[in-house]
């Protein structure tokens, strides 16, 4: 219980170092190349040498992967032109070389200062992801921090074959404040952290099938979670899409009128809400299974 290094506390570079096989990471467009955003510089906003995303190739458990980690603290991990080009390029390379691609997500979506190029980059990356999927090249998103995956990056994450999440991770399209702004504080109080995590957090996403693995908040657990999916892929076909649509309709019918996220947990088999709230990763998974 003491002294563990939590995955969500690491920087993007530390996350990569912690999950890649020792010394195996080779960075593409590393900081000394100084490929930074010209737009931020013009606006008087500090730039970063990696423009908020570290990309490269590495091995995980001996298997070759393309690996990227977004830098959440840098403009919210948002996708600008350079950041977006690195992201798109990596997934394109994965499709070209038929090597699995792992993205450690930490982004609120498009960088407003360079909107169009961010939008285009996300769309192009999605196309590259689907190219990978058509070729059965695994694509995996890891969502493990409160910055999480929102906006275009929320959508992009769900385009990947698999999502590995921790209890700290959040996944959605509109962020809590935006939802509150449009729906009203009564419908969704963004200051209610418990509500926010119970609607967009890793545990709920796992229960609803939006996350494929829920793991402890440690680098080892995240690496094991990724490894589980490196040899697999999930089919993209009309049948699969239709089946997913059916599932979503069922979900809406079952929970559409629910006003309390605990009702969703209950409905998904979680009996002891208090114990489940405190449980992490596989312990939570076990509690949820027991109720089914």
């Amino acid at each position, binding site marked *: 219980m003491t002294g563990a290094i939590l995955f969500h506390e690491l920087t993007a570079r530390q996350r990569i170092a912690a999950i890649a096989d020792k010394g195996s990471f080779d960075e593409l467009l590393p900081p000394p190349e100084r490929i930074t955003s010209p737009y931020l510089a013009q606006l008087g906003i500090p730039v970063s040498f990696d423009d908020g995303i570290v990309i490269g190739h590495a091995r995980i458990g001996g298997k070759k992967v393309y690996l990227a980690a977004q830098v959440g603290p840098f403009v919210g991990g948002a996708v600008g032109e350079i950041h977006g080009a690195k992201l798109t390029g990596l997934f394109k390379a994965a499709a070209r070389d038929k090597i699995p691609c792992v993205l450690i997500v930490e982004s609120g979506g498009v960088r407003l200062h360079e909107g169009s190029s961010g939008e285009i980059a996300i769309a192009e990356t999605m196309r590259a992801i689907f190219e990978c999927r058509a070729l059965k090249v695994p694509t995996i998103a890891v969502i493990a921090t409160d910055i999480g995956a929102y906006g275009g990056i929320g959508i992009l994450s769900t385009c990947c074959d698999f999502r590995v999440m921790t209890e700290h991770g959040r996944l959605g399209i509109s962020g809590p404040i935006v939802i509150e702004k449009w729906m009203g504080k009564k419908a969704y109080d963004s200051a209610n952290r418990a509500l926010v995590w119970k609607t967009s957090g890793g545990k709920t996403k796992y229960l609803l099938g939006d996350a494929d693995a829920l793991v402890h908040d440690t680098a080892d657990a995240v690496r094991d979670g990724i490894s589980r999916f490196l040899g697999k892929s999930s089919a993209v076909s009309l049948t699969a899409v239709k089946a997913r649509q059916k599932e979503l309709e069922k979900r809406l019918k079952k929970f559409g009128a629910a006003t309390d996220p605990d009702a969703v947990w209950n409905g998904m088999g979680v009996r002891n809400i*208090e114990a489940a*709230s405190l449980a992490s990763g596989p312990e939570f998974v076990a509690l949820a299974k027991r109720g089914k």
Partner: protein
Amino acid sequence: MITAKSAKRRQNKAERIARVGKLARGKFVVPGKVPEVLRRIIEPGDILCLEGDNQKQADFLANQLATLDKKDLRDIHLVMSCITLPAHIELFKKGMIKQVDFCYAGPQGTAVADLVKAKKFPVGAIHTYNELYARYYIDLTPRVALIAAAQADRKGNLFLAANTEETPAIVEPTAFSDGIVFAQVNEIVDKLPRIDIPADQVDFVVQAPYPMHLQALFTRDPAAITDVQVLMAMVALRGIYEKYEVQSLNHGVGFNTAAIELLLPTYGERLGLKGKICKYWMVNPLPTMIPAIESGWVESVFAVGGEVGMERYTAARSDVFFTGRDGSFHSNRAMGQLAGHYAIDMFIGASLQIDINGNSSTVSKNRITGFGGAPNMGCQPTGRRHPTKAWLKAGAEANPGPGSPPGRKLVVQMVETFQAGRVPTFVEELDATDPSIRKALHGVTPVMIYGDDVTHIVTEEGIANLAACRSVAERQAAIRAVAGYTPVGLKRKKRETEDLRARGIVQLPEDVGVRPSEASRSLLATQDIKGLVRWSNGLYDPPSQFVDW
């Protein structure tokens, strides 16, 4: 024989109560009648005490008082520890107050500064807690006290629950001088878990329509502790706690000391300090102490107040905390401050500003806060006679003269050299010396802790042992040496710093065996609030603003 004065006082009380008449049924008043009852029991010129410290507030009674106007109530001499609520400010805006004597105005600090600028804040003095309570027995004895309790029974006995805090210190001088005690309670019940204030000392009771305001003041989310704070905590543990074998102590409210608490079961354990330091505490039930308590570091904790969410945990750990027979938590602000004054080896706290002589203050022209309890503990109690290892060791370093006590309390200021937004903590002169503030306070600069009382300053740069300095110039040089890259720090001279370092008066992290590269949040016993709940085996119930699960 009854003296004329006491007869008058008693008679006057009887008249006030008679004026209330049928507005009360016995002692009990319904909420809607409270403003009128207040109007009838308070007289112009009264010393009126409003209960409210930095945690608990008689907020319903304060809000009702604020519905009155100058025509109802005027010339009030207000005495209270903390000006915390908008209702308190209202009383000044309406011109009902002729004088105020208080300790602290945390959340209303800006509003108070505005009142001072508008000349609507006729202040007597800013006090420390025990200083103000002491004056309740001398020259500021309340005629009417408006207090807050958790429960009353049908006779008017009061149960104060975890937040006893300052209630006894207000009720005793008021009740025993024929003053009127009016209590708001959350509930009226048939049987109390324990009686904290006997009905005999209570004149009126109202069941408030909402529970009294309680501020979760001492909850520090481990997630917000920085690596730099961990570094400072490591330096303090090695350079002060370990060096002096500090056994009894008080921690202020802050992330620096929260980091120390969370390092005890990890870094402290590794240093083999368990059982040697940090056994006896005068501190509120800090959630960040849970891991140290669960790891067996702590013998006892006495508190000046409770902390929201710690009720079940403290009841389960009544071998450590002071509790009633039923396990319910007990606190007492006056006694806690007294304990912190006389009976501890060390006080360690933070401040917004420290000047070149080691004086500290949180007051500026635009924000007048005050002191609270820090100065009661952050000072040298020259009335102390009992020795402890730490006291004697610090005393020997201070090289006491023939007319001085042989020991010293460790009074430690632990600050980062810069506050948020690159505002320097170290300054040549305190903002509190501003002429307008001094004028409002009758020539007194509101210093929180005097430099002469401070034994050590800890920053991310290292430790300055002020007690070991032999001159004012030397003390100034020691402060500059740890003031980092603030303007005060940039004026240090390399040779002076090296000389002080050679004599152990200034110690850098490596001088006390701390490698800065080792300082990391991963050393903390837990990195978030959820971890504290896990450490407590589910007994800690954090306030909702801290819960994300």
